[in-house]
């Protein structure tokens, strides 16, 4: 083995890497927030509605779940460019992840809604609550508990998937790593450091999620 490991440049650019990790988190969190909103809407449309809107929701969900995330990113990147719609790399990644998250979360939510017995709705209507109150006060809080664990997993996924940003020119953690690696040719060293950063991020997310769960779901 005649390869010499050079770790010095990696340490030197560690601050930059960590800063770009914030970008990774930012895009992952934003895509989760949007994904939850769209996912909720999609799942409700899929459960409640018929007609074109339902087909739209079903296509979205199934396309998101049955094609690679990278392909979805490319679509928002180069595909839509053909129609003269241009997004910055940040937006490409955000939209791609949101599209993907929404599809997966919609199915989680659907499972969540199905797990709430019909009688809960009846009970809350019979108390004189309107449908909106029933959903916001009774159904959704319970659904959130059912989907909390899958949602945490999806958040981890969003972080992992955001690494695809490096393939569409987004300088999040992976993109930044690639940029440095291409300047110093220390690919292995840089990506090893980045792997550790990802691992730590994921562990932190899981830890926080557990902490939050214990505060949120006392019942």
């Amino acid at each position, binding site marked *: 083995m005649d390869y010499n490991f050079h770790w010095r440049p990696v340490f030197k650019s560690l601050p930059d890497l960590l800063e770009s990790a914030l970008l990774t988190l930012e895009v992952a969190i934003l895509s989760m927030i949007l994904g939850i909103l769209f996912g909720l809407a999609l799942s409700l449309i899929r459960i409640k509605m018929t007609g074109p809107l339902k087909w739209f929701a079903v296509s979205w969900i199934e396309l998101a779940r049955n094609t690679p995330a990278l392909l979805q990113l490319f679509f928002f990147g180069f595909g839509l460019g053909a129609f003269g719609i241009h997004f910055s790399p940040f937006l490409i990644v955000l939209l791609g992840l949101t599209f993907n998250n929404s599809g997966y979360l919609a199915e989680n939510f659907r499972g969540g809604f199905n797990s709430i017995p019909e009688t*809960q709705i*009846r009970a809350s*209507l019979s*108390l004189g609550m309107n449908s909106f*109150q029933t959903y916001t006060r009774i159904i959704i*809080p319970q659904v959130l*508990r059912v989907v909390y664990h899958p949602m945490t997993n999806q958040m981890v996924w969003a972080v992992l998937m955001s690494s695809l940003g490096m393939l569409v020119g987004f300088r999040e953690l992976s993109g930044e790593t690639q940029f440095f690696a291409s300047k110093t040719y220390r690919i292995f060293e840089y990506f090893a450091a980045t792997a550790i950063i990802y691992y730590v991020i994921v562990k932190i997310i899981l830890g926080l999620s557990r902490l939050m769960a214990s505060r949120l779901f006392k*019942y």
Partner: protein
Amino acid sequence: MIKITNLHKQYGELEVLKGIDLDVPKGEVLSVIGSSGSGKSTLLYCINGLEPIQKGQIIVDDIDVHASDTNLNSVRQNMGMVFQQWNSFPHLTVLENVALAPKIVSKLSKKEALEVAEKQLLHVGLGDKLTQYPSALSGGQQQRLAIARALAMEPKCMLFDEATSALDPELVGEVLDTIRLLADEGMTMICVTHEMGFAREVSDRVAFFHEGKIEEINQPEELFGSAKSKYLQKFLSKVKT
């Protein structure tokens, strides 16, 4: 108080209620019995406006429940309903369960809502469980919680749909006692039940449902003692009275 005339209800093709006429005066306790699928639950749902009807009229306290300009939510505030499954809201504490509707529906202040809730919980004997979550309660306690929750809206009448049938035998008693209490206090009630003993003891009248119709309705002694309808005779011979 509750006046039903010629009520017809279909689920798709299936006609479940085939012309019901029923008059429940204020303060009466009416028990509804009948075999499974005869439409007992459906009747309660229609009275509460939880299911649309096809024909007929349901007047509760001078309001036509199914008229298009009726505000269903305010109708429901006057009618408490308790279901077979304990429908306590699992994500709220016992106290919050009861206080929620007074707060967001009756628009009481938070403090008032909590007071009302506490009062009703004491009423049904759950005064020591206020901060627990429903998962920590027994089935019977959860069912009493559901009753307290309905009572907190200070309804003029109560609808019970087999409120005890999902309970273990040893827990049935405590819920029946609570209902009995309400009856004694003069609450107007319709109770779908399969506890014949309870029906006999508490009700002013008992209605026997058969295939979407009221086959026989009478004072309990008459109905259980000298059933006229042969379906009722058959039904009574199958259940232990």
